[in-house]
């Protein structure tokens, strides 16, 4: 299925891109993160397990068990620091 993946803040900078379209077989956010870890050394570093990476599915904060669907929008970003 086709999905949109967005990156923000330090993760966006590390990857040199803010958004990418992907064709994926991942069924959850955890699966997708595993898949992204393999596509480049910078992905492997920016999204490494053990790093504080937060995720959103269709613009709602979600944990790794959240299920993806065709056309969904996923985002990876560091802990938020607004206010």
């Amino acid at each position: 299925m086709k999905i949109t993946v967005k990156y923000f803040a330090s993760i966006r900078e590390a990857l040199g891109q803010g958004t990418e379209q992907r064709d994926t077989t991942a069924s959850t956010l955890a699966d997708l993160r595993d898949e992204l870890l393999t596509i480049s050394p910078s992905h492997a570093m920016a999204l490494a397990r053990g790093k504080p990476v937060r995720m959103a599915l269709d613009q709602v904060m979600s944990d790794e068990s959240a299920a993806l669907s065709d056309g969904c929008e996923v985002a990876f970003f560091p802990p938020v620091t607004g206010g």
Partner: protein
Amino acid sequence: MLPRVAVQLEDFDLSTEIAMLRESDKRVGAVCSFVGTVRDRNEGDQVATLELEHYPGMTEKAIEAMIDAAMARFDIYAARVIHRVGLLQPLDQIVMVAVTSAHRGESFQACEFIMDYLKTQAPFWKKEQTPAGARWVDARVSDDTALARWGLQAPNA
């Protein structure tokens, strides 16, 4: 009707915002507001500028949901949140939360609740310019603790 959430580059005026929020609502007996501003120091270093990035779309939705949660939890009449993005300097205003209610207790609490929620769940990121270079600001565990006081477990840091 006045939008409840604004994410904007421009500065804001607290008096104007409060006047609009309570305009012609004769039930209101209390207005509480919080304004966050840019400090010139963080973690012991001088801060020259602060740049705020956010997730357009999600930011507005997340803050709308926080206001809904505050309306459900506290007996308040109206709330408005403004958050600035882009390049800011020390002394600049960053964020405003304003709440109206019949009595002070509810709006004091709702104002703090929305702010605690926003600090840990709204997708904003700060990058500060220091003499040693630019760096992303780290999330604070104390902000997670502040949210947990409301019975909400959603660790960010």
